[in-house]
């Protein structure tokens, strides 16, 4: 990433923070909140799913850990909501250690299945222990902000996206990021050149889990209420993965573009299809796999590279002809 790109990214960040000065309607701000929240989630997922190539379909586990951490710890331990957010992050880290410990020994579809099964077990536990979690009825979540909440939550989501973006940029340029990509391309070769694949993947998953848990806490605090089928459901896991895959897994910008496209599409189709709005996710998945396997950003980038390459060849051919 060049200096000019960094300046552009910073300018977009500042502009995003200024949006509530123009957009005052709560409804619009909530949609924008969702766009940024899922951009942050997609970026978090991208670290493990995109860069390391480990398709997790169980990120609801970390999302739910963050949400339930904020919901349960203040009441049970009498601590402030912000410390509860941190505790939720620690729980998510514990989940990541457990899930990573078991499932990183598995490859391909087995890894995917293990991540789903873990998240499902957590959802069922949350459902079936009403004394602890409120069960299916759910539990109240303390508000993190007061006053003009829509604006505050929007800002928080923008800051989280910026944090996830900065983390992604830093990792993609560091040795750690190259290790992850090496593991994605060929795990056996990566091992043979001395990359500790298990440790590297686990580290990436833990970073991803921290960011995802923060998003979960923010989401829960906006709705002031959580139920297992909402924050721990497979639909959350799927949506996070679709955002990243649609935009372009393994690219810095992909998840952000993916979130803008998916969340606007789902907002439009929500009114048409009502409860069947997951239909659009299904259609997008099929379209991405068949026509955009590298996602929107990945495909565009490949096309630009090709144009640059062929443009160069054409120019030099012209040069030869002129001589």
């Amino acid at each position, binding site marked *: 990433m060049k200096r000019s790109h960094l300046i552009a990214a910073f300018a977009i960040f500042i502009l995003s923070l200024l949006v509530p000065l123009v957009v005052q309607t709560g409804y619009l701000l909530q949609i924008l909140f969702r766009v940024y929240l899922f951009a942050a989630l997609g970026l978090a997922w991208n670290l493990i799913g995109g860069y390391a190539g480990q398709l997790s379909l169980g990120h609801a586990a970390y999302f739910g850990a963050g949400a339930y951490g904020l919901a349960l710890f203040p009441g049970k331990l009498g601590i402030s909501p912000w410390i509860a957010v941190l505790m939720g992050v620690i729980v998510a880290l514990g989940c990541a250690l457990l899930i990573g410990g078991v499932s990183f020994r598995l490859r391909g579809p087995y890894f995917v*299945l293990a991540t789903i099964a*873990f998240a499902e077990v957590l959802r069922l536990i949350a459902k079936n222990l009403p004394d602890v979690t409120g069960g299916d009825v759910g539990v109240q979540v303390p508000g993190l902000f007061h006053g003009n909440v829509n604006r505050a939550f929007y800002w928080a989501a923008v800051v989280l996206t910026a944090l996830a973006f900065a983390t992604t940029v830093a990792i993609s340029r560091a040795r750690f990021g190259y290790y992850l990509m090496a593991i994605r391309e060929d795990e056996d070769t990566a091992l043979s050149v001395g990359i500790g694949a298990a440790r590297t993947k686990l580290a990436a998953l833990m970073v991803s889990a921290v960011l995802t848990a923060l998003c979960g806490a923010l989401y829960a605090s906006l709705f002031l209420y959580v139920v297992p089928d909402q924050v721990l459901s497979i639909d959350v896991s799927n949506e996070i993965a679709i955002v990243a895959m649609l935009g372009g897994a393994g690219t810095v910008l992909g998840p952000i573009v993916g979130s803008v496209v998916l969340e606007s599409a789902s907002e439009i189709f929500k009114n048409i299809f009502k409860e*069947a*709005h997951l239909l659009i996710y299904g259609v997008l*998945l*099929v379209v*991405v796999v*068949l026509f955009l396997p590298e996602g929107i950003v990945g495909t565009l980038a490949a096309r630009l590279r090709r144009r640059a390459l062929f443009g160069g060849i054409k120019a030099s051919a012209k040069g030869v002809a002129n001589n």
Partner: protein
Amino acid sequence: MDLYAALQAVINGVLTGALYALVGMGLALIFGVMRIVNFAHGAFMMLGMYATYVLFTRTGISPYLLFIVAGIMLFGVGYAIYYGLLRPIHGKSDFMQILLTLGIGLIATDGVLLIFGADYHQINIPLLGKNLHLGPHIAVNAPWVVSFVIAVAVALGLYLFVTRTMAGRAARAIAQNRYSAPLMGINVFRVQATSFAVGIAAAGIAGGLLLPVFYIYPQVGDQFTLKAFVMVVLGGMESIVGAALAGLVLGVVESLTSLYWGNEWALAVDFVIFLLVLSLKPSGIFGRQKA
């Protein structure tokens, strides 16, 4: 009597397990043998259920005949989906198959939701009120028994298809060595399409047989996708018989869990067993040791 309750639970578990087995055998053929990662398997079961449901409400013919129609319809659906969607991404990574079939499953589930609504339905057939008494303490519901008998017959047919027919042999040959199989004159795409369609037809038939004894709603198949993978892994990947046995085991385990801990824990126990097997003995309980 506690013992009778346990025995009753085991019998109920076996009856349910036979239907699970059918779903699991279908996926064993698709995923275990053909290595197509089908995340829409439960959705296809649901489609079989809805096909039977619609035909039953329109014609009034017994679901115990209509399941055949559902099976044929899903065979067609499977064939079309293989050639239309799966073949174009042949040779790409597993993740592409996972995402594609996940998408197909979402389209099927939410398409049905859009057409039929989210309501739960249950069909009413005369058989539903009848119970068979085995001694003074144990009784089984008649439709479960009929579904069980048909499921066992279909499972046997599926076993014979894989072991005795040319297509089944070709499928196993591809599983053994996908590079030399075509050299022996096997048309890989055609065999894969047939196996995929047969596996999905099995799920559809299981759906048709579940209709008389289950509630029907668009998401009914969701839990079956993961359950089917649990069966295939427990059964040892390439083994159709292993998946069938795993289906019976799962049925009994769920039934006993419901009896002692409550119905709500049954699914959680399934997944915990699955995670334990994946981490401790990835070759499956019934599978032979293989890398």
